């Protein structure tokens, strides 16, 4: 069906969402591969080095065979950034229908595991679609008419925790909570290290959780927060995590964290909510931009955290 010039068609949204899910399931993004290669190169423990070598080999074979890189294909979800003047055929309701259809179809075609079940009855629809599934989170961008779709396939059992700290806890409290979370989930590698750590700091409790997930999944390795105090703490947390020595799959090794990303939000004057998420060895993400003219461009960096998204003032 033809759509007016400058309107992004439903059909295109579906195709891009489908392709993003396919890529996310199969191919580790370049920044992830580079981080795993670096971890392999610096690893001094023989078993950890053997395992990291297998992780790199697996990434290659997954692409060669076009098969999911991990048997737990995670919970497919979307992060959608919409340009302020973007026009969508059928509006957001049509967009969401396309996003849900793409997850169902990729689940069948690429043979993802049907992970999503009813939490009480455990009924499995078999296509990773259900009540509030897949998640779709939105953000907006001024002076833009494009649509960015990021698919993330993240595991869902181990690695995330939340805690309300207080100003008197200081940075020590944050460090200690990170260590607690790593110790809780890093043993035997339940959280599948090496991980990218995402820390949500501040905001309301639910914002804090959400930001920790976004920090873990939507910033490329090596990226640093623009706030100098935050970026200094990011460096400290990577170093701290790696001093634990859990290493890949908890066998004991030099790299527990590939990187750490912190996102902050202004919070209650009396508290310091903190949340930790861990994006695991199955580092799965794909981003595409659909222009108003219908061009599609896939890229490595989701560029989710724009200056506008992190804005401090009113505008």
């Amino acid at each position, binding site marked *: 069906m033809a759509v007016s010039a400058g309107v992004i068609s439903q059909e295109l949204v579906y195709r891009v969402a489908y392709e993003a899910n396919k890529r996310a399931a199969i191919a580790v993004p370049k920044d992830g591969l580079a981080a795993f290669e670096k971890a392999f190169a610096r690893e001094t423990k023989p078993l950890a080095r053997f*395992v990291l070598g297998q992780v790199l080999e697996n990434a290659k074979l997954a692409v060669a065979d076009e098969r999911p890189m991990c048997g737990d294909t995670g919970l497919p979800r979307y992060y959608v950034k919409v340009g302020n003047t973007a026009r969508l055929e059928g509006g957001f309701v049509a967009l969401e229908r396309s996003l849900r259809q793409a997850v169902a179809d990729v689940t069948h075609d690429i*043979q993802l595991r049907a992970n999503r079940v009813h939490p009480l009855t455990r009924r499995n629809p078999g296509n990773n679609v259900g009540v509030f599934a897949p998640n779709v989170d939105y953000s907006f961008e001024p002076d833009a008419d494009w649509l960015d779709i990021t698919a993330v396939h993240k595991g869902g059992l181990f690695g995330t925790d939340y805690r309300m700290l207080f100003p008197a806890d200081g940075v020590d409290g944050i460090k200690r909570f990170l260590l607690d979370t790593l110790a809780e989930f890093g043993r035997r590698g339940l959280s599948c290290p090496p991980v990218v750590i995402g820390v949500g700091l501040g905001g309301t409790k639910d914002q804090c959780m959400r930001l920790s997930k976004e920090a873990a999944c939507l910033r490329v390795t090596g990226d640093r927060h623009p706030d100098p105090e935050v970026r200094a703490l990011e460096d400290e947390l990577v170093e701290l995590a790696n001093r634990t020595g859990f290493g890949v799959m908890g066998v004991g090794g030099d790299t527990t964290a590939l990187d750490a990303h912190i996102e902050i939000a202004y919070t209650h004057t009396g508290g310091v909510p903190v949340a930790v998420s861990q994006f695991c060895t199955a580092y799965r993400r794909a981003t595409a931009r659909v222009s108003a003219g219908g061009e599609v461009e896939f890229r490595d960096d989701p560029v989710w955290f724009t200056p506008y998204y992190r804005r401090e003032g009113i505008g």
Partner: protein
Amino acid sequence: METLRPREWHLKAPLSQGDNGKLRPGDIVYLTGPTYTARDGAYRRMLVEGHEPPVDLRGLTNVTMQSSPAGVEVAPGVYHVSSLQATAGFRYAQYMPALLERFGVKAVISKAGMTDEVRQRVFRHHGAVSLSTVGYGLGAIYGRAIERVLGVYWVEELGISEAIWVLQVKELGPLLVEGDAEGNGFFAQANEEINERLAQVYQGLKPPVFRRIGEEQGPKREPF
């Protein structure tokens, strides 16, 4: 730097007593033969609700995998698996005595192995080993090792992700020997070394001002 490879075994399922006897924690195993998956749904149905298994599991093999393969029905009754990985084994501690006793299981493939207590009390008693997938995200490598899906059972009753998948595998590995037949465990040793480092890393960080219920659990203990 040279990649120092661990001791490596290529074994056929069903495993013999001799096979299990030579395995030590930290060894790597590649497995060829039939195996079947079972996790929460299948364990509950067979071991708690008392349903007979849909196929003679004991007669088929003595290797089972705690897994839900990434696979679909490609044509009516025809299944294909793209990618494979095991799930965390500690969660199934309560089912292990009955599983090993009733089905003659001699190797359980999980993610991260069994609790020390279960390994000592149950696995050792049966001369069984606990194997762990490696990585843990080696889904493509393990998926490649599947030669054929021999059958998928209880799809209707349990849903496809909890069903029993009977798989013919070839050189399924690398699998880490997490627990040997004598009760020795890989992670028990690894955790001791990590605990020494953890104590240093925590040093000087003051405890939180507001404690959570159960906070007396120290970071040196496994949380399960």
